[in-house]
């Protein structure tokens, strides 16, 4: 009986993993294909399509996306941290109401938000902000609830006994913030920032309203390209951006890697 459950467990696990990874494997294979149609003959695989990525056609959108995502990560990281500090740590009056308001963008469909932002900008005569400034502002609105939530959770879990310990040892409020609270919530802040970066970098529904023609983010460029052609360059773009995202996550993990010593580690 136990044996059968074990086998069933492993079968289910393999099925789920296959479900997640197979599409990715197909894309990787497609990006290596020697012809425009996707083939599965490893002996003929080539990295040739990847050289196309260095052309301005792909490089410029990539750079725009990175700039937007990095700025969004930084801004929403700082705002989210400040919001969580005031609402969860200091518990200023009206904290619950303000928190609900901060999280409310989650409940508005992105398409609606995109249309609203475009209409607003043209109503007040700020169409000039379309492109990078509008993208950054919109993505911050989108990412902020996630960042705030994550930082809020780590602040809620913060042991206030540590603050008292630092206080009786003579640390001022600012010193306690810098030397005790921030290092302790750093893993939460970093995962929030990572999330914000990915949310911005992958975004289509908002960005599609806010980019300027001829100067689009990577996902929008991909969508536009797909309207006319489906070839291995497309697959190569996706594989490359996937690797980029993984590298970004890995980097953030490294920065925040201290968490192992704090929350677990060897005895």
């Amino acid at each position: 009986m136990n044996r059968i459950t074990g086998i069933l467990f492993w079968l289910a696990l393999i099925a789920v993993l296959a479900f997640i990874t197979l599409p990715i494997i197909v894309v990787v294979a497609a990006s290596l294909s020697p012809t425009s149609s996707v083939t599965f003959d490893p002996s003929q695989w080539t990295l040739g399509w990847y050289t196309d990525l260095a052309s301005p056609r792909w490089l410029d959108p990539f750079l725009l996306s990175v700039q937007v995502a990095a700025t969004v990560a930084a801004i929403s990281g700082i705002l989210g941290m400040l919001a969580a500090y005031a609402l969860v740590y200091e518990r200023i009056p009206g904290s619950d109401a303000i928190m609900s308001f901060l999280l409310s963008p989650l409940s508005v469909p992105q398409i609606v938000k995109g249309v609203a932002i475009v209409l607003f900008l043209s109503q007040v005569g700020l169409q000039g902000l379309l492109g990078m400034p509008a993208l950054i502002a919109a993505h911050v609105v989108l990412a902020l609830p996630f960042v705030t939530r994550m930082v809020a959770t780590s602040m809620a879990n913060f042991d206030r006994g540590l603050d008292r310990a630092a206080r009786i040892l003579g640390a001022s409020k600012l010193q306690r913030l810098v030397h005790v609270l921030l290092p302790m919530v750093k893993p939460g802040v970093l995962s929030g920032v990572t999330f914000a970066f990915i949310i911005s970098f992958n975004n289509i529904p908002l960005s599609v309203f806010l980019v300027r023609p001829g100067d689009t983010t990577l996902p929008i460029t991909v969508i536009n390209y797909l309207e006319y052609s489906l070839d291995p360059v497309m697959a190569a773009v996706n594989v490359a951006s996937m690797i980029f995202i993984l590298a970004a996550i890995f980097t953030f993990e490294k920065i925040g890697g201290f968490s192992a010593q704090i929350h677990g580690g060897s005895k």
Partner: protein
Amino acid sequence: MSNIDIELVSVSKSFGHVSVVKDINLQIPKGEFVSILGPSGCGKTTTLNMIAGFNAPSLGDIRIRGRSQVHVPPERRNIGLVFQNYALFPHMTVAENIGFGLRMRGASRSEIGTAVRDALRGVHLEAFASRYPKELSGGQQQRVALARAIAPRPSVLLLDEPLSNLDLKLREAMRVELKEIQEALGMTFVYVTHDQEEAMAMSDRIVVMWQGAIAQEGAPADIYSRPQTSFVADFIGRSNILPISDLVSHPPHLDFAVGGGAVRLRSAESWPGQDMRFCCIRPENVRLLQDSEAAPEALNLLTGRLRRIVNLGAQVELLVEVDPNLAVTAVVRSTLAGKLPMVGESIRLAIAPEDVQLLAR
């Protein structure tokens, strides 16, 4: 120049309508090891928090070296505090934890280095400077917490049940060590605990708290041998606390009845001048008389039936029913165990009048 380090003047604390600390007056001289001892909920931790500055007194004043502290925040009181759960900074090494206080005060690198080395040596953890708290045992964490509190050389060290998370053997070893550290530093220690053995073992002075007020204050031996209330007699050590009646003075003695009038006892105390309601007899002061032994004239003699024998290791506890309304507990050395009667048999007890104390409350 007074040598009083900490002074509590008519200090009271209420949370809403609940009065937690009621009009406490306390003076702690420099270099003394003082324990605030009491059951949970007696107000001892609130008192400690008021000395540390985490709670402000509702009424009264707290002075450290003569200066009122009511408007001084904890970070500027120059007090050390050892927390029950240690509260070590998990993201800092042992050395960084210990150096934290000095670093926050802007001490130089070399100053911090020296202080950390000294503190580590003081708690025998020289080899652990670069470890993280998670990598240490409970006992080691406790030493780091102590070293961290001592390193900035505070005027006073407060300790909030610091040993309660350690196992018995370690706890007993730490008692001796804490006392030695305190004597070596000559620092004033205020030690909050509910463990009377701990308080007895280390303190120069014990302040027994009950229901938000000081029940009794004095040297450990004093409190043990002369408890002033039935609460203190019961809380510190073990006691036979018996309600009394029919008190008559026969100078230089007092005679009275216990067990609802069934048994008369004699106390060596002089006339108290107020209504005494209980008598207190320590179980180790109840002597067992062997069959052959003649009863000494001057002692209180009781005859009863042995109801229960509890082996405590080095000692044996006996419950003796003297009368249906009167049971007395005696504690004797285990070496006598072979000479004890069987449960249910008759037994004779002797109590010196000097060991019978009368209590009003």
